């Protein structure tokens, strides 16, 4: 199993404490993500953004959350055998976990390199496959954690604080 962590400086202890406690969320939304389903891809992220907008989260933070979540949703759509997006909304943060059914990321460090992509022709024709998905998720989130089993499933978790 391969693993990747990135946490914004100063938030390491707080974010890891949250992950080990995982308290009950105020709002919990789950979305199924279909294989290459580019008609519905992004609906989950849009829905989470709407919930957070109603809570009064700052527009710039909202866009960061939406972009990180959308890129991850697209990754599952474009590269996996389908999966689920679990979203948990709290008073001070949003925690989103993507779980797919494989086929796993062969080399996570390589996948983090801007411009590197395994996207196929169909995905590229739609404007994806720039190789910026994971870097964009990292740039916009306070915590990014990826766990992947070669030939098996991948879990990607993000946490973003509202302030």
């Amino acid at each position, binding site marked *: 199993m391969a693993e990747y962590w990135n946490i914004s400086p100063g938030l390491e202890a707080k974010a890891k404490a949250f992950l080990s406690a995982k308290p009950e969320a105020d709002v919990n939304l789950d979305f199924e993500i279909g294989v290459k389903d*580019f008609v519905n891809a*992004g609906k989950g992220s849009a829905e989470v953004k709407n919930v957070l907008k109603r809570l009064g989260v700052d527009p710039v933070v909202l*866009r960061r959350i*939406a972009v990180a979540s959308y890129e991850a949703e697209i990754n599952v759509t474009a590269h996996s055998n389908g999966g689920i997006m679990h979203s948990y909304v709290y008073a001070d943060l949003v925690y989103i976990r993507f779980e797919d059914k494989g086929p796993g990321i062969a080399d996570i460090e390589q996948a983090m390199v801007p411009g590197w992509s395994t996207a196929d022709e169909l995905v590229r024709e*739609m404007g994806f496959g720039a190789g910026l998905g994971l870097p964009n998720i990292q740039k916009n989130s306070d915590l990014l954690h990826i766990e992947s089993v070669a030939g098996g499933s991948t879990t990607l978790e993000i946490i973003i604080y509202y302030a």
Partner: protein
Amino acid sequence: MILKEIVTLLEADVLTSNADLDKEVPCAFASDLISDILMCTKEPTLLLTGLTNPQVIRLSDMIDLLGIVFVRGKVPPAELVQMAEERNLVLISTKLTMYRSSGILYNTGLRSCKI
């Protein structure tokens, strides 16, 4: 610059029926790569693109797009126009290329959006 001026400068057609062309546009961004466009998280922006699939409209659910200009004569399918109308998003189509459209707007004072 307001949308109406942009439509005139690009000799463009407005595709959405409920378009508010008096909307002020402070800046623009041009790309055919979705991850590139998603770098515009700092301010509302006008998008110039050659992409005409539904994910382009979905982008406006994530970042704040003031409108989309489809370049080099591309016209999106009807369901995409409907998706845009549901979101009050203005769609414009120009025969000019992305390079030429961007050049005209930039020279007229429309700045690049902050990324």
